[in-house]
């Protein structure tokens, strides 16, 4: 579809806004509807759109498999890592209260980090699934 001017230009135009929306859903998730899972999926949509319009080869070049795999693992590690940190700071596992002087701030920070972890892992998982399926030769 790279040669179709309308597809190409519209896709180029859309992608930053989709990215922005993903960020909004991710980081505004604690005040409005949203959260890491949804944001991760929306973020992955950008890559899928890019792969559809500009070809799989280009998309794989932008996000190599090694980076995706690292992101997959890193999200989970970030989530569980927050739990470990709270434990070393004297609380229970995933007790965000101890992360800051003020329990409310602690909860805020904890949920922020944990949801970031979810977002990273989900985005990487969606892109990986897309790459694996689209890369198959019947």
């Amino acid at each position, binding site marked *: 579809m790279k040669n179709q001017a309308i597809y190409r230009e519209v896709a180029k135009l859309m992608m930053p806004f989709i990215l922005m929306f993903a960020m909004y859903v991710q980081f505004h998730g604690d005040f409005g509807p949203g959260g890491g899972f949804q944001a991760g999926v929306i973020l992955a949509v950008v890559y899928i759109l890019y792969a559809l319009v500009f070809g799989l080869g280009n998309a794989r070049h932008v996000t190599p498999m090694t980076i995706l*795999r*690292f992101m*997959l*693992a*890193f999200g*989970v*590690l970030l989530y*569980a*890592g927050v*739990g*470990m940190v709270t*434990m070393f700071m004297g*609380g*229970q*596992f*995933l*007790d*965000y*209260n101890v992360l800051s002087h003020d329990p409310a701030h602690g909860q805020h920070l904890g949920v922020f980090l944990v949801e970031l972890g979810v977002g990273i892992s989900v985005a990487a998982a969606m892109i990986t699934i897309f790459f694996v399926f689209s890369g198959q030769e019947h």
Partner: protein
Amino acid sequence: MTAHLPVLQVVLPLMAAPLCVVIRQLTLVRLFSLVVTGTAFLISATLLYQVNTAGPISYAIGNWPAPYGIEYRIDLLNAVLLFIISLIGFLVLIYSKNSIAREITQNRLYLFHSLYLLCMTGLLGMVITGDVFNLFVFLEITALSSYALIAMGGGRLGNPQALYAAFRYLILGTLGGTFYIIGVGLMYMMTGALNMADLARLLPSVFDTTTIQAALGFLVVGITLKMALFPLHMWQAAAYARAPSTVSSFLAATATKVAVYVQLRMIFTVFGQIPLFRDTPLDEILIVLALSSMIIGSLSAVYQKDMRRMLAFSSLAQIGYIVLGIGLNNATALSASIVHLFNHALMKSALFMALGAVFMSTHSVKRGAMRGLGRNMPITMAAFVVAGLSLIGVPLTSGFISKWLLVQGALESGMWPVALMILVSSLLSIIYIWKVVEAAYFKKPKRALPKARDPGPTMWVPMWILAAASIWFGVDAGTTVGIANKVAETLLGGVPQ
């Protein structure tokens, strides 16, 4: 840190799994996962000791108190299960090195370690949690990772059948998981609770509604699918036969046991305040299914030519014994079930390990290929025979202890035909184990087997630890039976008769 042991038990392997993906370098990954499973084993041993001496432990995740947040709750029953899972997990991982190098594609080996740890995380989590929804999450972690592990049998020496087996397990396993979550959803609808202790308190007042009775039905069917009881065992034989040997030794010893644990938890804790065995035909259903599993499982095992399929069908029979003990509804039979959970895990894992070693040297697990192996692979075949004797239930092996208790339990309930069926099923198991012994020790190989020889110590040491343990716990059964009696008393203690 000792206060955090319950959560570390699950979180250590959980964090180790993605770290394996990050590390990637095979030697490091292997060393790292050995350290983690070893630590998990130490933690479970400590927890078992603590629970046995000081009573149940409760841990509030995120410091949210019990009915609102997720609670990890360890009593003697799940402490025993944690111990089994992490013991088998550790030993099988030591064993795995050469075996997986032969059976799994080289560039997937680090993923194997990651999935293996994830599967272990799921099993440990299912057992440790006191929250029915959290249990579902861990159930899915276990299920998804085990589908992938089984499918890995398709690499290198294996065959594409593994993918088919994994897919079949995926369909049925997902059905099982869905039934379970429907049951949980129905209970949540009526009580608004997900914590097991909370549910136990709230359920009696709504038990006469069809919603809760439907929930019970969904739960029992879903869990029965997961533990592969007749007639829902169809996925098991193919999955165990096609998976890499290492995966079969781990899953056969732990996955179905954990499903049995969930069944026990549902019947005796969540529905613990309701006399299910008096008010519903659940006990008759369990007994009939268990007896069918025992006879059909043993009979099918006799006719198998593929030895891994034979062991899978024998697992069906053994799960039958365990469920029978639950259905008989008395303390002796129930403690027989719990002892057998432990004993069967040891011997079945040892048997699959021995077959894995045979597969490595002869590239086949057909009975015909085992001719004359008694001479070529004395250490492996001796381990197979010892664990096999325990499977039959010969005196001085651990299998004898559990069957003896089970027969006693059946007689206590006045069901002598059931006791007879146990003996019949045991006789059938003599036939299928003997066929292997005959092939290995009394028949000449069709052609010379110059290459077939015993594997290195990384393989035979864990195999023999398990085989020796099944002798040890047959001679000195005081510890296991003592703990099982205590568990059975607490489980039955809460149920109004």
